[in-house]
């Protein structure tokens, strides 16, 4: 087990290193930083000054190492646009996105897991077809459209929920549902197909042969073996939700990381873009690592590999 954990952490660190190189490389590929910082009207002398000032005249490996050593302590430099440290901006926005992501993940799971289990009991049955229809609808419905429908129905016509801002937990209900709607079909499908396999397996037949009650067979013996792929998919999907909530954050005026990323890209605000890319990647890698470790706890066979 210890060996497995060390190995997983090692892989995670390597991935992060690769991401940092890519992130740094992308910045370099996007053109001469000094020129773009100096704007069009600046003199050549000023551009040179900036180049020296920011160390851009140094060889690339040196620049990378300097940049990395600062990034490691969270220093990504100042935002070109806000003039404040990029990490500060990120720290302000991250909680909103995290709350939204967790709410969305939670809603998606409590909806998709039971539905997937029920659908798998009788493949091709009425509940299964209903679940497939919901999943298809979920993937075919544009998120922004769903957001607008919800805003019109619950926000404006019924007046039950606030339509923008982050003042209370009620603000996260509609965005959370929208995000869950986007994430749930993947969970539904993995639970359904996993349960169909598990229910047709020999060990489920064994459980039934020894008279275990259907709920025990279903939720103890079968579902446990679906958790491993579910956890893996959930980690990836949670990462997508964190990174892909731009539309939802924009519509509901939730000032989260997605919204910040969109602004920063539009304004060539490289320090902020880098901070976001690295932080979101780090979260992603951490999630994957957490999923691997959780799976090792769930499935004893993984620990020994």
């Amino acid at each position, binding site marked *: 087990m210890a060996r497995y954990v060390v190995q997983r952490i090692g892989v995670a660190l390597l991935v992060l290193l690769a991401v940092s190189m890519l992130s740094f490389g992308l910045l370099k590929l996007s053109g001469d930083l000094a020129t773009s910082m100096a704007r069009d009207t600046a003199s050549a002398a000023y551009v040179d000054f900036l180049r020296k000032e920011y160390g851009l005249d140094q060889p690339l490996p040196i620049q990378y190492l300097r940049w990395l050593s600062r990034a490691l302590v969270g220093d990504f430099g100042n935002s070109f646009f806000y003039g404040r440290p990029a990490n500060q901006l990120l720290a302000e926005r991250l909680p909103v996105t995290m709350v939204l992501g967790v709410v969305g993940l939670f809603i998606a799971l409590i909806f998709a897991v039971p539905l997937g289990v029920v659908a798998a009991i009788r493949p091709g049955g009425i509940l299964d077809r209903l679940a497939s229809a919901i999943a298809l609808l979920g993937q075919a419905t544009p998120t922004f459209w769903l957001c607008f429908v919800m805003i019109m129905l619950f926000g404006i016509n019924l007046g039950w929920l606030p339509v923008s801002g982050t003042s209370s937990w009620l603000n996260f209900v509609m965005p959370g549902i929208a995000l869950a709607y986007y994430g749930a079909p993947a969970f539904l499908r993995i639970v359904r197909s996993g349960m169909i396999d598990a229910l*047709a*397996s*020999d*060990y489920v*037949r*064994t*459980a*039934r*042969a*020894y*008279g*275990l*009650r259907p709920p*025990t067979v279903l939720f*103890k*013996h079968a579902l*446990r*073996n679906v958790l491993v792929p579910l956890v893996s998919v959930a980690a990836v999907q949670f990462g997508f939700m964190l990174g892909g909530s731009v539309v939802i954050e924009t519509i509901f005026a939730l000032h989260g990381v997605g919204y910040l990323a969109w602004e920063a890209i539009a304004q060539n605000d490289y320090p902020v873009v880098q901070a976001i890319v690295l932080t979101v990647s780090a979260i992603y890698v951490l999630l994957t690592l957490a999923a691997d470790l959780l799976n090792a706890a*769930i*499935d*004893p*066979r993984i620990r*020994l590999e």
Partner: protein
Amino acid sequence: MSALLEVEGLHVDIQTQAGRLEAVRGLDLSVAPGETLSIVGESGSGKSLTALAIMGLLPPGARRKATRLRFEAQDLGALSRRALEDIRGRRLSMIFQDPSSALNPAYSIGSQLTGVYRRHRGGTAAAARDRAVALLERVGITAAAERLGQFPHQLSGGLKQRVMIAMALMCSPALVLADEPTTALDVTIQAQVLRLLRDLQREMQLAIILVTHDLGVVAAVADRVAVMYAGEIVESGSVQEIFGNPQHPYTQGLFACLPKGRAGRHGERLGTIPGLVPSLISPPAGCAFADRCPLVLNECRRAPVPNFRLSPTHAARCLRVAIPSVGEAAYV
């Protein structure tokens, strides 16, 4: 002695793409307390489906019909799902062919063993644990208490099958259906597991239905034998009767396929039964073995062949038995 299990007119149909397949066609059998009945047949003869049909564990798409299906004076066909669940694992149990897939990979063997016991007997976790340790020791697993925490993938095939046997016996059932219990094991382990089954049977007054394709296994443990072919029992009798005086040409053919003599003389040709098992989607009107039978008569194909009784225990579904002059089937 009154029968523990009585089966009459058992049919199993499977819905396939090509049509309805009659996998088991009117099968009768009975098992007395404490005896071992072996059902022998090649793959596709319907022997495993017979066992699953008795358990009520047929796969989706398969349907069971029976004129009589009684176990311990209860009609298994008329029981509610819950009542059947109360019997399964407690009075009527099953050992499966491949212990590697039949044990749940996500739970320790202790958890799986005690789960069965507590489901039927209730009681404390400690009591269930004691029972599990006692049974693991009985099936020949050393350091049983430590093994409880191990997972199936940490055990060898032979050990897993011993765990499976222990699990089937947790609640001291009256009848165990063993579906090819040694097929997935190494030859050396097979003998040990068979010996264990035989010993446990004597010790626990256990009745066993042993489903196998292996006549060696039959000889080692069975009291009575039922030979299945194409969904029917073609011959049944005591081990002595079947091995010493096989009457049905198919049974004789099975023995002709075995190497003669223990050592298996070098260069000896093994017998084969020519032809193929008939399709059971539209089974033949007469004897299903007619097309492969060296002694076939015109009458064989006309109508279903009745079961002819040769002794109180021995019967064969073959017209030749009623016409004794024809002589023995010759197989090369």
